[in-house]
């Protein structure tokens, strides 16, 4: 029987909150990559409008972490868990912001009068980013360091696709120079997707720390 019931209940409640937030953010990112394809106006608005929920939750989770640290002074795996939550919480919130940014870029592109709205097919890059995010979050949920390590490999593919997007946008800009804003927003989609991949990698690094107690930095 655990002897610190209150403390361990607090940790479990915190874990549940983090998982709720994780699910919310994963849903936002899936919607964001959908609107890159569909330009669905209602979905774009709903992504932008609902961001406050994630922001509020981030603050709540951070407050919980600080309270638990002050009151219970955790050590060993409990300490590593709290440190991981504090850092992952921040990464998740920023991923939520990236989903909003994608929605805003799509909104600008949709309203453009350019005949060439799509400079690059983002479906493959989106798929890789979603896979990385899902793997990092699954690794976090299951505390699976081996899965976390696999994420590092996919990141290379995402970076390659971002470079291809850049080349495609530069080419389109020379072909359709009358709508540079539309093209720049097209490239920003690649940047936002890449940043989500970076943050998924950061989460994977934190999972390795949580499980193994070793600080790993890929870059």
């Amino acid at each position, binding site marked *: 029987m*655990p002897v610190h019931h209150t403390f361990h209940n607090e940790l479990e409640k915190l874990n549940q909150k983090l998982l709720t937030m994780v699910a919310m953010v994963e849903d936002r990112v899936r919607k964001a990559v959908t609107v890159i394809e569909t330009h669905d106006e209602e979905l774009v608005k709903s992504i932008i409008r609902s961001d406050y929920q994630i922001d509020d939750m981030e603050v709540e989770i951070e407050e919980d972490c600080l309270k638990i640290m002050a009151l219970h002074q955790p050590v*060993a*795996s409990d300490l590593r868990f709290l440190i991981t939550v504090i850092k992952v919480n921040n990464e998740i919130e920023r991923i939520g912001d990236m989903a909003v940014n994608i929605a805003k870029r799509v909104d600008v592109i949709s309203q453009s009068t350019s005949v060439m709205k799509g400079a690059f097919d983002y479906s493959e890059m989106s798929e890789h980013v979603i896979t990385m995010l899902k793997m990092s979050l699954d690794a976090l949920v299951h505390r699976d360091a*081996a899965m976390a*390590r*696999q994420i590092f*490999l996919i990141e*290379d593919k995402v970076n390659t696709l971002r470079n291809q997007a850049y080349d495609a946008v530069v080419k389109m800009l020379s072909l359709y120079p009358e709508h540079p804003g539309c093209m720049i927003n097209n490239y920003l989609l690649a940047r936002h997707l890449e940043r989500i991949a970076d943050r998924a990698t950061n989460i994977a690094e934190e999972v390795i720390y949580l499980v193994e107690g070793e600080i*790993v930095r890929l870059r």
Partner: protein
Amino acid sequence: MSGKEEILSEVTTKALHKERETVGSPFVENPRMTCREVNVYYGDKKAINNVNIDIARNEVIAMIGPSGCGKSTFLRCLNRMNDTIEGCRVTGDLRLDGMDIHDKNVDVVPLRARVGMVFQKPNPFPKSIFDNVAYGPKIHGLAQNKAELDEIVERSLKKAGLWDEVKDRLTQPGTGLSGGQQQRLCIARAIAVSPEVILMDEPCSALDPIATARIEELIAELRQHYSIVIVTHSMQQAARVSQRTAYFHLGDLIEVGMTDRVFTNPRHQLTEDYITGRFG
């Protein structure tokens, strides 16, 4: 091999130890004390099971573990305090600077001067503050005259961080001091006979947080001159004051390691369970 390949090639080996042999780093270079295959019996009951550990010079090593794990019993082996307990038998090899402390030629009185002890409850003699500190140097013949004795008393009280508080009332009884002051008086008493090792058996458990903080500061200063072995039930205290931590469980020494490592990433499942409160 690229950075990514290196990270990927690492095998996930974070399976915590579950066997009962000691994990971590129980041995040090140039130790002050060595303990090998130490067993302690109370009658037929084995209280300490084959413990191997070194005590380093100028280190504070904390011994932690649940009640009845044997940490205080082991502490008392280090200056043969268990000799005073009827039915208690100690086997194994315990050495102080290479000297076998169980050798038949070893007199426990000078041994206990070299390996001093501070107890859970402050226990000043019913004598003056001065005499409490002067008693040891007198019986060990450390002072040739009154001036030398005065100097030892003053130096010891200064090292124990008590001098400024008592210098004007050295003739008053030691028992009249506050709990924290009494404990520092006991530390001064141990220091006065020039020990090499100071054993502390829960020295702050009867003290309030302020008095505890003063003792902990004092422990950090005393480390410059002595080896300190502290038994504590407070894991925060172990984390604050020690460089190494040893975890005992049912008479076994389970894990020894650098304190920061033990409290962030213990190697043994039992250590992890105990320090995170999941044990029991």
